[in-house]
């Protein structure tokens, strides 16, 4: 076999039931499926049919690196898990990305990825060292918090091992449990920690002494300097006097210390804010933890993120002079806008976000909340954007008068939040056990009309100086909570942007904005802004974002460096530098379309996905007003869905891809299987 660049050549099939390992050559999949999520989608399509539930032994955890992982190409340290998500409603195939050093170590150990199957008889962890995979007892690890687990594994195997671990939330099958690796990096969005727990899998620990060889080293070094234009400037520890969402900061008594750290192995950025010497939830000792995105609201959630105009602060509609990616703002990595931009005045029109009054600023309590999520191994987004706002709003609206959680509901109280997390993570009592099933399921058991749809009367728009409706449960499609969708958290984006983000969410199976924050050019914005649901440009930008997400999770790359609308073949250059396989922007986009089609086919075959189902899943949240009082009509929304399906090559009536579309991307076998199941639209004459 010719020397393999980028990839290391092996995928391990690991069966926990009978403790066996077999090896699959990576070349069975590449380069048609370029790596990461594309390979995972192909494996899942081939191996997991309808009827399998998240906690069944037949569910699989597929973990894949990308060809750029551990090559020195920035952002290649990002890797991806896929599985049937217990946190989605209904349970569906989903994915979750993760940074840290684990993926690089897996490749140094000789593997491009794993397929983890079955269920261990007792608590188990995998120890992988240079091609050898051992099944070891996790009896002495079970019950430990996340960082204690990581420390114990380093004590046993040496400080140089890299691990992914679950905490008590995963062990107890809390549906939004996460998997954690170094630098507080988590795979949190698919309830993956609970799938680990259901398989009695506490951790995977790896040591690799091998090498990864990129094809084009001068190009790797060039990319290190060019991607996202790293500042290459000193970043000292900074004493901060205030804290909060930029533009809404509050003073912190005594101040706090901030540093910046990289998210993943070999990245050329330092996006993550490291908070030094913070209060712990579990002892007197101070701890360091990372504030990456949503954790900022743990410290105070009185008002929403400010509006910045169509060009900022999220960087949605961009010009060549002013373009950056959404979350860079939170890590304080964004330079001031370029005022010489001819569109500057139209792009940047700052204004305050909605007043929400969920909880007051309390720096120490915020640190405790983040520490609880980190140590229990639970998705912060669900806690901070759904559970706690729900309790805050519901309490004020009187919906919990008959509910006894064992303490008075008070989200301003550190002791209450510690108690709340304890009863959920350890499934204590009726309500602890119920809330461990995740917000979407718990609210349906309690009664959605009262416990989900009751209107909160504390939201006030400062864009139109008016009280606006908001439901106490900030639920969007597929059992997830709102994210950049025009209402709730990060709601200060206008209709031309939020119809796009809601379309992203409609076709997904989980919160999708973590890997495909919406972006488009400002020139397109000027074309589509007056009637975004009737502009083909809106659908076109959503498709670009979806395809870029497939590319990011496959090459691999990161949502904080991609897409760069003004360097559209960046990811193709990354792939080619890693593998030596010639790749153009167009060819990579075809690979992304293929991966996306497989994902669509999985949702159609396994979960009955169709137009009516997904339109009805997303439409309700958009009936609550955005900060300008705007909603979307049924007709508008369906016109946009028509445009999207048409551009995607889907049948407009069913939302199913046509045979011609599957065959265009080399998936005739997929079309044949779906046709046999009656899930291929009839051919149009």
């Amino acid at each position: 076999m010719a020397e393999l660049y980028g990839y290391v050549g092996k995928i391990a099939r690991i069966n926990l039931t009978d403790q066996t390992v077999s090896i699959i050559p990576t070349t069975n999949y590449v380069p048609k499926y370029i790596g990461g999520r594309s390979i995972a989608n192909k494996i899942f399509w081939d191996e997991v049919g309808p009827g399998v539930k998240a906690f069944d032994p037949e569910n699989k955890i597929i973990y894949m690196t990308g060809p750029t992982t551990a090559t020195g190409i920035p952002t290649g340290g990002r890797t991806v898990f896929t599985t049937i998500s217990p946190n989605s409603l209904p349970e569906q195939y989903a994915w979750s990305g993760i940074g840290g050093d684990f993926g690089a170590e897996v490749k140094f150990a000789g593997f491009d990825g794993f397929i983890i199957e079955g269920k261990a008889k007792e608590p188990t962890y995998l120890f992988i060292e240079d091609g050898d995979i051992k099944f070891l007892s996790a009896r002495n690890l079970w019950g430990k918090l996340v960082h204690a687990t990581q420390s114990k594994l380093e004590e046993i195997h040496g400080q140089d091992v890299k691990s992914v671990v679950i905490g008590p939330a995963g062990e107890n099958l809390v549906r939004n449990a996460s998997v954690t690796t170094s630098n507080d990096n988590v795979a949190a969005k698919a309830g993956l920690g609970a799938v680990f727990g259901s398989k009695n899998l506490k951790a995977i620990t790896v040591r690799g002494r091998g090498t990864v060889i990129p094809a084009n080293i001068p190009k790797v070094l060039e990319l290190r300097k060019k991607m996202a234009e790293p500042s290459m400037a000193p970043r000292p520890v900074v004493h901060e006097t205030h804290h909060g969402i930029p533009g809404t900061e509050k003073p912190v008594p005594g101040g706090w210390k901030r540093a910046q750290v990289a998210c993943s192995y070999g990245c050329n950025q330092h996006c993550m804010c490291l908070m030094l010497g913070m209060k712990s939830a579990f002892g007197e000792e101070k701890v360091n933890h990372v504030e990456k995105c949503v954790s900022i609201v743990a410290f105070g959630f009185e008002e929403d993120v400010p509006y910045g105009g169509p060009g900022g602060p999220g960087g949605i509609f961009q010009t060549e002079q002013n373009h950056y990616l959404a979350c860079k703002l939170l890590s304080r990595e964004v330079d001031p806008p370029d005022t010489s931009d001819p569109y500057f005045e139209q792009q940047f029109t700052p204004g305050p976000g909605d007043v929400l009054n969920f909880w007051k600023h309390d720096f120490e309590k915020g640190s405790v909340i983040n520490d609880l999520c980190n140590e229990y191994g639970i998705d912060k987004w669900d806690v901070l954007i759904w559970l706690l706002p729900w309790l805050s709003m519901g309490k004020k609206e009187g919906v919990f008068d008959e509910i006894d959680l064992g303490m008075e509901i008070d989200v301003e109280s550190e002791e209450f939040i510690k108690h709340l997390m304890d009863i959920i993570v350890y499934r204590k009592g009726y309500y602890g056990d119920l809330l461990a099933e995740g917000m979407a399921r718990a609210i349906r058991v309690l009664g959605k009309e009262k416990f989900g749809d009751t209107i909160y009367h504390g939201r006030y728009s400062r864009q139109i100086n008016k009280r606006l409706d908001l439901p106490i449960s900030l639920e969007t499609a597929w059992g997830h909570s709102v994210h950049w969708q025009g209402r709730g958290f990060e709601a200060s984006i206008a209709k031309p942007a939020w119809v796009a983000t809601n379309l992203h969410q409609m076709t997904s199976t989980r919160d999708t904005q973590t890997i495909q924050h919406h972006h488009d050019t400002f020139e397109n914005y000027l074309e589509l802004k007056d009637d975004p649901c009737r502009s083909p440009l809106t659908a076109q930008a959503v498709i670009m974002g979806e395809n870029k997400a497939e590319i990011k999770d496959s090459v691999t790359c990161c949502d904080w460096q991609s897409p760069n609308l003004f360097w559209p073949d960046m990811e193709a250059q990354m792939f080619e530098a890693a593998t030596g396989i010639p790749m153009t922007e167009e060819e990579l986009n075809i690979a992304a379309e293929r991966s996306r089609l497989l994902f669509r086919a999985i949702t159609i075959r396994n979960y009955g996905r169709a137009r009516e189902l997904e339109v009805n899943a997303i439409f309700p949240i958009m009936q609550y007003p955005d900060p300008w009082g705007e909603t979307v009509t049924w007709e508008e929304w369906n016109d946009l869905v028509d445009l999207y399906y048409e551009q995607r090559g889907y049948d407009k009536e069913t939302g199913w891809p046509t045979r011609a579309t599957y065959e265009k991307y080399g998936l005739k076998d997929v079309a044949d299987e779906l046709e046999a199941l009656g899930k291929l639209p009839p051919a149009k004459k």
Partner: protein
Amino acid sequence: MNEKKQTTRALGRHIVQSPPEVSFCAGCSACEIVCSLVHDGVVGHAYSRIFVNKGTRSMVSTIYSCQHCLDHPCYEACPRKDQAMCLDENGIVYINEEHCIGCKRCIKACVFDPPRINYVHSKDKTKRKAKKCDLCRTRPEGPACIEFCQVSCLGLSKSENSD
């Protein structure tokens, strides 16, 4: 890790890590990666001549690299001195791998803990090689670890014995 074997000794110019109040190491491993890329064309822990010790919990990283001792005990210990372990005209000790037999005597002679010389293990004895910082002596741009440090927390000590 500590420097229990270290004694006060004369050092040549070497890679230094800035204190956190000047620049905080982002823990990205860029220095390790570019080191092994420019020297060996691969990425792998055993091939780096500079090491990042990351705290999984603390997220604080410490950089270790050769201190270029002026009395160069590694050079003195090499059984193939001047063939495998060599000394250039600027006093930089470097390894000519063609002649390195992988005996590890240079590593044992290193006075620092952890030793600042890396080692490639291999079943093939002829491929066992020591790896040591040579300050990228043949690279016109100078040390790659400094050039590619995204937070500029690495530098070259200003003069012998300085930090």
